[in-house]
């Protein structure tokens, strides 16, 4: 079987589809696509790492997206990023917390520049945010997680009794 040049153009849409379904592109998917399209895995890896959309690792359960567009930058986005990373204990460009609960992503521009700076945590979008408010939003989720896991433990004990 030969691959026409036009078939090759299916590579990026296929990878995008995998990511929509899985949240990231696992190694197994790369192998399968490699066989199907007759493109070497190294070439696929090259494409994957070129585009910022693709992830090679699963994300945390909660997504924190902070806009780093120009308008957000001049209105204080770097302080929001520092505050959120500090609150989650992320250092040196780490994106996902060790417990796998949070992933922090700096996004080029949401296009909501008039409300700069903007943060999106899971489904909640907030504009004109301050570092203090960003910390509170994150803390609220951390508290909810702790409560849930405590309830889970108690629930477990209850069934044991």
């Amino acid at each position, binding site marked *: 079987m030969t691959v026409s*040049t*036009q078939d*090759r*153009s*299916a*590579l*990026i*849409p296929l*990878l*995008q589809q995998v990511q929509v379904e899985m949240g990231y592109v696992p190694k197994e998917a790369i192998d399968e696509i490699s066989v199907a399209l007759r493109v070497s895995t190294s070439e696929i890896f*090259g*494409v994957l790492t*070129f*585009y*910022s*959309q*693709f992830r090679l690792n699963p994300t945390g359960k909660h997504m924190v997206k902070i806009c*780093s*567009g*120009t*308008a957000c*930058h*001049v*209105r*204080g986005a770097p*302080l929001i990023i*520092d*505050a959120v990373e*500090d*609150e989650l204990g992320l250092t040196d460009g780490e994106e996902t917390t060790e417990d796998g609960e949070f992933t922090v992503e700096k*996004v*080029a*521009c*949401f*296009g*909501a*520049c*008039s*409300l*700069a700076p*903007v943060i999106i945590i899971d489904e909640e*979008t*907030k*504009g004109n945010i*301050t*570092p*203090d408010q960003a*910390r509170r939003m994150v803390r609220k989720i951390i508290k909810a997680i702790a409560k849930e896991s405590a309830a889970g433990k108690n629930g477990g004990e209850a069934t044991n009794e």
Partner: protein
Amino acid sequence: MSNYTAIRKWADEEVSAQRADKARIAIGLGTCGIAAGGNAILEAAERTLANNTEINADVVSVGCIGICYKEPLLDIEIPGQPRLSYGPVTPGETKKILENVFLHNIYEHKKSLAVIGDDAFAEIPSWNEIPFFAPQERTVLRNCGFIDPEKIEDYIANDGYAGLSRALLDMTPEAVVQETLDAGLRGRGGAGFPAGRKWTIAADNIRALKESKSDLPSYGYVICNADEGDPGAFMNRSVLEGDPHSVIEGMIIAGYAIGADFGYIYCRAEYPLAIDRLKLALEQAREKNLLGENILGTDFSFDIKLKEGAGAFVCGEETSLIASIEGNRGMPMPRPPYPAQSGLWGIPTIINNVETLNNIPVVLSQGAKSWAEKGTEKSKGTKTFALTGKVQNTGLIEVELGMSLRKVIYDIGGGIPDGKEFKAAQTGGPSGGCLPKEMLDLTIDYEALAEAGSIMGSGGLVIMDESTCMVDVARYFLTFTQSESCGKCVPCRLGTKRMLEILTRITARHGKIEDLDALEELAPSIRDSSLCGLGQSAPNPVLTTLKYFREEYEAHILEGRCPAGQCKALITYEIDPDDCTGCMVCLRACPTEAITGARREIHVIDPELCTRCDTCRQVCKFDAVLVA
């Protein structure tokens, strides 16, 4: 009766039937409308209707008309009355306004914005009278926020596809190219290359290819560049979300003009709503025989496919975009050959920006002469801008080319908020530059902006005030271009890295005065020897800030001082004992416990523990926190 006349008649009937007896409550739910809390307004409107069944109205979500700083917006359109706009509204106000309007015929409210029409109504002024809209000229945004972008009949009833009909039924392809040349429409993606010239080259190459080969699946392509990547710009998103058919119509006309048979829309994946609306619009156009085989009964066939980008700024560059559609890393190729000679899969291809294509139907339906009445001699027409940053009235605006920056910033934008002073206007994003207040009377056209060291760009216009550090802005843009550099050519890959290192050093208190010479030496060589536009324009933010704000660089280096109070390594936070009331608010808010004190005692910041996160200054109600 031609096919178009029949379609137009159908659309007019559909639209008048839909609007005949039912009022329309429209809520702007573009990306910024949602961020401003538009969903709560939608719920409030629906609840109000559920509780007042006598109100005969539909609640719909629409794109925005650009007045972002008044989001969330509530629009009411009653048959036989002009459209009224209110904002920013709360859920409570939404209920009140709807009940007032529908049950008591009271239209005025403290949140009344304007009548979206030519005349005032019930004491509410026409939008032509309010400063934000009055100086604007809407060609590109002719339909945004007015038509329902999910209904093709709305577009057609507003002269949609009339340009295509004229091109296909009354004109030869050569005449269409000539019309575009006559209009003087220049590419709206930033560089300003005349669209008609690009088309001429492609048309010649496609003709030659057809003569020499007879077995190719395609002889020419039209690509719409919708990979809007400038961080601080959202003009294309608004057009795609609010008026998708205008871009599709422009592409079909372009295809006819150059002899192409297929098109691609390359759209940023970060714009899910735009992608959904484009997909729907393509289907509708096919259904009405405006796209596909034998369009409008002629022998011209053309179809369009949507491609999602995967997040790479460099893919806004023509040859990179082509590489990306072909399924490769989006890296540029040396030009020539230009895509109009040999583009996608080696076939002649034109690549036009969203806004360029959006203008084409107007050029064709109104004629080149009428279209070209607006603008200056060399920069014809209008241009959209995303007016953002430190300006009162932020939003999506459209002005006639040739307007002064001052008019845009002070008349439309309402000036600088919080009594602060204007410092710079940034145009063209990472490829553009920062213009100082001495340049406020500069007219917005391709030549004037280039001469000042910036570029028109795609339409980002970010306003900066005295609290914006220009060294930090230069560093911000270099961080962006450096991380988006594809790495193919050395000047861009290493040159931007070196520049970024120097700028980072300066903002971190380690700069030397020789660094400025190094920047000035690096910049021209990166500009002249990079392979594509990304590298060639990357030095612009550095060069313009060095040219117009050199004293700020010198203050960082020679005095160890950041005049704008932004660079963390160069500033300290202090509490003014005269203004501190000892209220404990900052002390509680400080994340590092750097503030000590007790109730009604003056607080003190420990500079060793302080991380300069700015929280204390923001929470202090007495402006007692000083940055030096």
